[in-house]
């Protein structure tokens, strides 16, 4: 991945015939999905349908669970992430991740941001990078006077924005967010959504959410996932379109049922 920043091409990520396995169990079957640059793509669907599994497969985080495997391809700027010569470390460096529960390191706020940049060989002005990342995550004003305090001392919403700032500090192209607001209160959730809107000018965001309103409010595209009805209980994508279409005139009956059932 010598040349990561190629801003040509409409799609940052192209998922082709992707299936994800845990051992013999096929958790996600045959997903095809294109993620457009500088847009927010939401993945929605009922619990246990493989949304998070799909998301983790986009930066090879799923490999941390022993026994996982994939078939198919995920193209990142045209390169297959699962090609044998690709280093997963490099993949996660370019495609960052924010997790369901805020998970700051038990280090200072400053160190939380600086750590990732430091391991990737950042030699520039660290203070500048920390301030920039925290500003981008709309956290700077709240923490600028206590950068040496533990990240764990912040509130849940602040912690999550710290985690977003941490992800931004290594300058990824794509940020994967796994239900980033599910453990937060409505006000903190709103803040995160506003932040996402701001961030998409510079980043591409893929977000998993079980909150229909959030998907409708915040995303440009929406992918609907569902368990296929077969014996295997494997998740698959049943519909993908602009968010406005998914929520107003979905083509698939199941999408309509899910969206309206939860929505109305």
């Amino acid at each position, binding site marked *: 991945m010598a040349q990561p920043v190629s801003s040509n091409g409409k799609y940052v990520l192209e998922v082709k015939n992707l299936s994800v396995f845990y051992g013999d169990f096929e958790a996600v079957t045959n997903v095809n999905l294109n993620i457009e640059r500088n847009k927010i793509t939401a993945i929605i669907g009922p619990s246990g349908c493989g949304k998070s599994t799909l998301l983790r497969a986009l*930066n090879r*985080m799923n490999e*941390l669970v*022993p026994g996982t495997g994939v078939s198919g391809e995920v193209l990142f700027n045209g390169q297959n992430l699962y090609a044998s010569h690709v280093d997963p*470390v*490099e*993949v*996660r*460096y*370019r495609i*960052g*991740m*924010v*997790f369901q*529960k805020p*998970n*700051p*390191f*038990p*280090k200072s706020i400053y160190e939380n941001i600086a*750590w*990732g940049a430091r*391991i*990737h060989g950042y030699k520039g002005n660290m203070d500048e990078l920390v301030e920039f990342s925290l500003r981008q995550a709309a956290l700077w004003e709240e923490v600028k006077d206590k950068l040496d305090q533990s990240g*764990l001392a912040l509130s849940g919403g602040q912690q999550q924005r710290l*985690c977003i700032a*941490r*992800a931004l500090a*290594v300058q990824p192209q794509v940020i994967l967010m796994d239900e980033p607001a599910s453990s937060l209160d409505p006000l903190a959730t709103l803040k995160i959504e506003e932040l996402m809107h701001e961030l998409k000018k510079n980043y591409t965001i893929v977000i998993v959410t079980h909150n229909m309103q959030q998907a409708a409010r915040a995303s440009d595209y929406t992918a609907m996932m569902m368990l296929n009805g077969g014996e295997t209980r494997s998740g698959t994508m049943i519909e993908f379109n602009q968010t406005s279409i998914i929520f107003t005139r979905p083509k698939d009956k199941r999408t309509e049922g899910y969206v309206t059932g939860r929505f109305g």
Partner: protein
Amino acid sequence: MATLNNGYRASKPDLRRRPRLSETIIQSLLFLAGFLSIFTTIGIVYELGKEALLFFQTPEVNLLAFLTSTQWQPHINKFGILPLVNATLMTTAMAMLIAIPLGLGVAIYLSEYASTRVRNLLKPILEVLAGIPTIVYGYFALTFMTPLLRSIFGRDVVEIYNTASAGLVMGILILPLITSMTEDALNAVPHSLRAAAYGLGATKLEVAVKIVLPAAISGIAAAVIVGLSRAIGETMIVAVAAGAGPNFTLNPFKGAETMTGHIVRISGGDLSYDSIDYNSIFAIGLLLFFITLTLNILSQQIVRRFREVYE
């Protein structure tokens, strides 16, 4: 108790508190069982203190010389504990030199690198190592480690009884203890922290050494302190392999007697009560008790603080 048909519904049940004698007796007995541990501690402090006091009251002994003299020669009335403490420190240092780096290495390997299969294979081996009686390690030190050292460094350099051999084998003895406590501490680090670091593009080593290890540092410190306390109190290895006779030397290839080794040698014979030798083992024991007690309390404090961070 009223019978079922007339008493159960007809009359008002008696809800008054009744004294339950058997319950009270049982509870008292159980309390005594729990309280026995306090007696044990009091017993240790009282008995050690009493005899140690007798030791210091004998005219030949004075506290200052006890703590500062480098000679322990009862037959010429020299009672300086430094040679014993020095030998204890030497064997302990040697043991920690082996056990800390190896223990950390094994623990990191088991917790961060090894597959489940390898882990399931290795952990029982650790348990076996931990369950082997220390006298067996003593035998190992004398019949394996000492000849090994002598063949490496020369028979003129390494004495048959030496602190190096005892210290090295003590390191092997403490290795499983430090490994398992460290591994527990590493495992207690929440998985989400590892995920966060991997998500930033960290390599396995960076996750293990820069995120997990610092997060577990207090648990690891506790493990090291417990290991230290265990090494200081360890007896049979030094009794068999470190040598008899208090000897103030910094040469690890020479024989020297540790505090514990001295107690074992002195009490091994038919010791007559009220002799100065008999009293002296209590004085040494008291010192040993306070050193290990301090270390244990310290490690518990550290563990307690560690818990507060994550739970």
